[in-house]
């Protein structure tokens, strides 16, 4: 009898759960990115000086505003897990989609690895003697596996947690900003002494361009909001709101962060330290502010790693669902409604990279995959508008000034590639070769398993010209 009841109540079909709202989208996007204010952006000062870091903050802000606007328009129409992967599949084609999914998985997995390493490094810097490699790796393992388990357990709890810890980490920046009396230069802050006409741009404009590589870190990952597309209650409303609100939050946060840090430390140190905001807290002389920034650094890194696990798993899951990878990866947990096999599959990969890679390498691989991805987006939106002009399909959001954001995005991506080439040319070449090899594998081997008609799922009219 119990068996009969159990069989009768067993689900015949399972899918991801639509439980998220705009606040969760904000928590996912800002959560992934905010760690960039706590570390990473400041290496731009090493390349070009403190003023260069500010110029890059706003110029790269322009790049990401374009990304957020373009992404909001396309994703409010192509509301599917996989985000830009699903966009590329429908708008450009399967080979582009396969590459975009790989960019996503690499960018987020490497970012997750970077965050776990950052948390271990931060704790190590306070732990003192007796903190051996066993302990260091214990922190990394604890972070990656605990967050993977949270993601495994359900998306609502995962992003509720992300909302709280992201908000706390963001508030810490605001509290620090007001604690140093920004209205009264000379009391705590000394911007005029730290940034002078002689040291503002120590390497000239080539230093500014070289700094673009690290400037990406101010906002890297905001486009990750689209991975939640299949789990939000109203994609057409929540995704544009959450993404644009996230971008505004980050622009404010990045500017405040630069102002406080640039006013407290010389560019040589700012470009060298791994913890600009934590050091800013220390330099105020207040133990309370120092400990607050210590905790906030860890919370920001946790929020980022948490969001990255969510996004990488969705991209991997989507590849399985379209048979670009074995369908085994497309399983959804009947109780928790999460892509549990994809989440679990990526855990040992993240752990392996976290144990063998250093922070600089992991960040660079993440940035490279991100910039490749943004370059695709500039082409994607032009094709989208050409194939399905305004009025031909329903859009949740229509971005203004088209094609200006696409042109700005493309130009800034080219400049950033040049900047990466200046500092990490070998890694850039290796990464591009990797994607070419994977493309050949997909084209000549894997694509035979794809059910070609089934992969295009949007009920759109035929594109113009077809």
């Amino acid at each position, binding site marked *: 009898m119990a068996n009969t009841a159990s069989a009768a109540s067993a689900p015949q079909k399972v899918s991801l759960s639509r439980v998220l709202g705009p606040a969760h989208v904000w928590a996912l996007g800002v959560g992934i990115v905010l760690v960039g204010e706590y570390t990473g952006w400041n290496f731009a000062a090493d390349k070009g000086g403190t003023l260069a870091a500010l110029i890059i903050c706003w110029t790269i802000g322009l790049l990401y505003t374009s990304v957020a606007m373009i992404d909001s328009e396309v994703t409010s129409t192509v509301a599917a897990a996989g985000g830009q992967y699903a966009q590329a599949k429908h708008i450009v084609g399967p080979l582009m989609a396969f590459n975009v999914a790989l960019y996503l998985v690499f960018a987020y997995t490497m970012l997750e690895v970077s965050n776990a390493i950052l948390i271990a490094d931060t704790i190590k810097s306070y732990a003192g003697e007796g903190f051996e490699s066993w302990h260091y790796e214990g922190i990394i393992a604890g972070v990656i596996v605990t967050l*993977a388990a949270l993601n495994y357990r359900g998306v609502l709890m995962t992003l509720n947690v992300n909302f709280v810890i992201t908000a706390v980490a963001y508030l810490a920046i605001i509290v620090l900003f007001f604690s140093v009396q920004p209205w009264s230069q000379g009391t705590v802050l000394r911007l005029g002494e730290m940034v002078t006409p002689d040291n503002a741009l120590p390497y000239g404009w080539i230093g500014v361009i070289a700094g673009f590589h690290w400037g990406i870190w101010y906002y890297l990952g905001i486009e990750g909001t689209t991975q939640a597309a299949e789990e939000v209650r109203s994609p057409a409303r929540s995704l544009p709101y959450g993404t644009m609100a996230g971008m505004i939050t980050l622009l404010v946060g990045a500017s405040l962060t630069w102002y406080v840090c640039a006013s407290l430390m010389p560019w040589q140190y700012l470009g060298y330290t791994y913890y600009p905001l934590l050091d800013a807290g220390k330099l105020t002389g207040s133990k309370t502010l120092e400990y607050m920034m210590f905790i906030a650094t860890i919370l920001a890194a946790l929020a980022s790693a948490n969001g990255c696990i969510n996004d990488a798993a969705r991209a991997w899951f989507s590849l399985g669902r379209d048979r670009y990878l074995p369908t085994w990866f497309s399983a959804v947990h009947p109780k928790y409604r999460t892509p549990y096999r994809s989440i679990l599959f990526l855990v040992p990969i993240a752990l392996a990279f976290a144990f063998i890679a250093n922070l600089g390498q992991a960040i660079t691989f993440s940035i490279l995959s991100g910039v490749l991805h943004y370059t695709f987006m500039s082409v994607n939106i032009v094709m989208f508008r050409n194939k399905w002009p305004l009025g031909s399909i329903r859009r949740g959001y229509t971005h203004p000034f088209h094609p200006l954001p696409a042109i700005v995005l493309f130009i800034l991506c080219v400049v950033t590639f040049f900047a990466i080439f200046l500092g990490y040319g070998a890694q850039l070449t290796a990464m591009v070769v990797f994607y070419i090899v994977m493309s050949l594998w997909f084209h000549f081997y894997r694509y035979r398993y794809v059910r070609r008609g089934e992969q295009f799922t949007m009920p759109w009219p035929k594109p113009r010209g077809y």
Partner: protein
Amino acid sequence: MWTTLANAGWAISAVLLLWMLYDWFRTDSTYSEDVLTSSREGEIEAVSEKHKI
């Protein structure tokens, strides 16, 4: 304190990993592969978006 936290990190990750592996095994043996992989992209759009403007 930090070394204790790090040791706890190993213990917690071992417990959670074992829980996930156990749950994975239990789920895979309870439900058929067809049910587990039955999610399809675009199902909601097919119902709610008609694209008649």
